C-alpha cells in the first residue's frame, strides 16, 4: 500500500447508540451511569457531550470505543455492532496516556506498527505527517516528560490520528490545560477536523468549549445518566471561543443545564 493511499481521508463513520444502559455496583450501592441512552451521530459530525461530572459521559465514550460493555443496548458503527476496540475508532483521554518509555515518535508509531499493510519506512512517513499536522515536527525525539501539557495532548492527538480512524473519541482532552493553550487547540482541532474529515465525539463539562467545537451539543444529567436536551450550533467555522455569537449559545445551554441539575436536586430531596 502506498503512503498516498494511507494518508488519504477515509470516509467518516456513522455511530448509532441504541438504548444503552450501564450500571456499576459498588460496595454500598448501585450507580446507574447510563439509563437507556439513544443517540445517532452522522458521518463526519462533530458532537459534544456535556454534563456535570458523574453523568456517564466517559462511560458512554468507553462503550463506543469498545473498552467497556453495556449491560443492555448496542452500539453500531456504520451498521456493524461494536463489541471491542477497533482501529476505526481511536480515543484521546483526559490524562494524555502517552507511554513514558517511548519518545514522541515512538508513541505515534505505536498504533502504526500494529497496522498491517505498511512497511516501516511508510509508517515513519505517516507518523511524520501527523506530527507535522499537530505542529510538533521539531519534537520527534523528545521525551514525554519534557513536553508541556498542551504539547502532550498534541502528541496524543497525533497518536490517535495516525492509524487514520473514521471516528475520534475525545474524553475531556483539554480539561487539564490552561486557557491560552486550550484556545490554540480549539483552533487546531477545528482545522484538523476540516482537513481529515472524521466523526468526532467530544466529551467536556465546559459549555463554551462545546458550543465552540460542536455541530451539536448534547446535554446529560446524572443519577441516572440520561440525555436531557440537544442544541444545534449553526455558527460558521472556524469559530472563535470568545465571539459574541458563541456567548449567546453558551448562555442558552448553561441555562438549560442549570435548569435540570436544579431539578435533579429537587427530585432527590423529595
Amino acid at each position, binding site marked *: 500500500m502506498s503512503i498516498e493511499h494511507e494518508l488519504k481521508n477515509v470516509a467518516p463513520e456513522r455511530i448509532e447508540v441504541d438504548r444503552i444502559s450501564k450500571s456499576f455496583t459498588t460496595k454500598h450501592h448501585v450507580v446507574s451511569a447510563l439509563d437507556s441512552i439513544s443517540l445517532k451521530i452522522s458521518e463526519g459530525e462533530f458532537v459534544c457531550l456535556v454534563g456535570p461530572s458523574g453523568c456517564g459521559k466517559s462511560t458512554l465514550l468507553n462503550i463506543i*470505543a*469498545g*473498552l467497556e460493555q453495556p449491560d443492555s443496548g448496542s452500539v453500531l458503527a456504520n451498521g456493524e455492532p461494536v463489541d471491542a*476496540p*477497533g*482501529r476505526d*475508532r*481511536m*480515543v484521546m*483521554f483526559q*490524562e494524555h*496516556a502517552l*507511554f*513514558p*518509555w*517511548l*519518545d514522541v515518535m515512538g508513541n505515534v508509531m*505505536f*498504533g502504526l506498527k*500494529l*497496522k498491517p499493510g505498511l512497511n516501516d519506512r511508510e509508517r515513519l512517513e505517516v507518523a511524520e505527517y501527523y506530527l507535522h499536522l499537530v505542529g510538533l515536527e521539531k519534537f520527534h525525539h523528545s*521525551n*514525554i*516528560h*519534557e513536553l508541556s501539557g498542551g504539547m502532550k495532548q498534541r502528541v496524543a492527538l497525533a*497518536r490517535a490520528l495516525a*492509524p487514520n480512524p473514521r471516528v475520534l473519541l475525545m474524553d475531556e482532552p483539554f480539561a487539564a490545560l490552561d486557557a491560552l493553550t486550550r484556545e490554540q487547540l480549539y483552533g487546531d482541532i477545528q482545522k484538523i477536523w476540516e482537513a481529515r474529515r472524521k466523526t468526532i465525539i467530544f466529551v467536556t463539562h465546559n459549555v463554551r468549549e462545546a458550543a465552540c467545537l460542536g455541530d451539536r451539543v448534547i446535554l446529560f444529567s446524572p443519577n441516572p445518566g440520561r440525555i436531557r436536551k440537544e442544541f444545534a450550533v449553526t455558527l460558521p467555522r472556524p469559530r472563535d471561543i470568545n465571539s459574541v455569537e458563541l456567548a449567546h449559545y453558551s448562555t442558552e445551554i448553561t441555562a438549560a443545564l442549570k435548569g435540570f441539575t436544579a431539578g435533579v436536586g429537587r427530585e432527590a430531596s423529595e
Partner: protein
Amino acid sequence: MKRALTSIIFFAILIGIWQFAASSGKFSQVMFPPPSNVAEYLWQAITDGTLGSATLVTVKRLLIGYLAGLILGIPLGLFTAKFKVFQDTVGVLALGMQALPSVCWVPLALGWFGQTEAAMLFVVVMGTLWSVIIATSDGVRSMPPIYLRAAKTMGSSGLHSWVRVILPASLPYLVGGMKQGWAFAWRSLMAAEIFVTILTGFGLGQLLHYGRELHAMDQVMAVMIVLIVIGLLADKLLFAPWERFLHRRWGTGTLK
C-alpha cells in the same frame, strides 16, 4: 574533575595510613599485611593466571544463575500480578522466601546437589528469583491502567501488550528488582564458594577461603579488592545503562 581529585586524595591517604600502620611493627605482617604485600600478591596472581581463572569461574556462575533467575522470575512476576492463582501461591511464597537471607540456601543446596556446579547455581538462582518476582509484580500492579486501555484501542492485545506495554511500563520497578536480585545473588554465591570446595571450578570465594586456611591475609585482602571491583563493574555495565534510560525517559532523578 575536582571531585575525582578529592576521591583520589582520600584513597591515597587511606592506603598511606594502612601502609604505615601495617609496617609499624605493632601488628603481625601475616595477619595485617601492608598494601604493598597485597599488591604484590595481586600482581603475582594476575601473572600466573590464578586470579583470572578464579574470576572467570565466579563470574560465569553468577551470570548463568542470575540470568536463569531473571528468565524464571520475570514471567512468574507478571503472572503473579495478573492472575489471582499465582498471587495466592507464587506471590505468597516469594514474599516468604525473600525474607530468608539467601545464604541459608547453601546447606540445602549441598544436601541436594552435593559438591557440584548445580549447587552453586541453585544458590544464585534462589538469591535472585524471589526479589525479581516481587519487583516485577509490584511494577505491573502499580502501572496506571490507562496505558493498557490506550494500547487496546490501538490494536494491542495478548502477548503484544505484555511485551510492549506491561513490561516497559514496569521498567522502573524491574530495574530496581534486578539490582536487588543481583546483590542477593552475588552475596549468596560468595557464601557458597567460601563454604564449599568444588572440584569443577575454583572461584574467588574459594581463593578467599584458602587464603584464610593458609593464613595468607594478603591473599584474602587482594581477593576482597577484586570482589569490590567486580561489584562496581557490574553496576556500571549491567545497571547504569538502564538507569540512564529510565532517567532520560521518565525524567526521574532518583529511582526506587
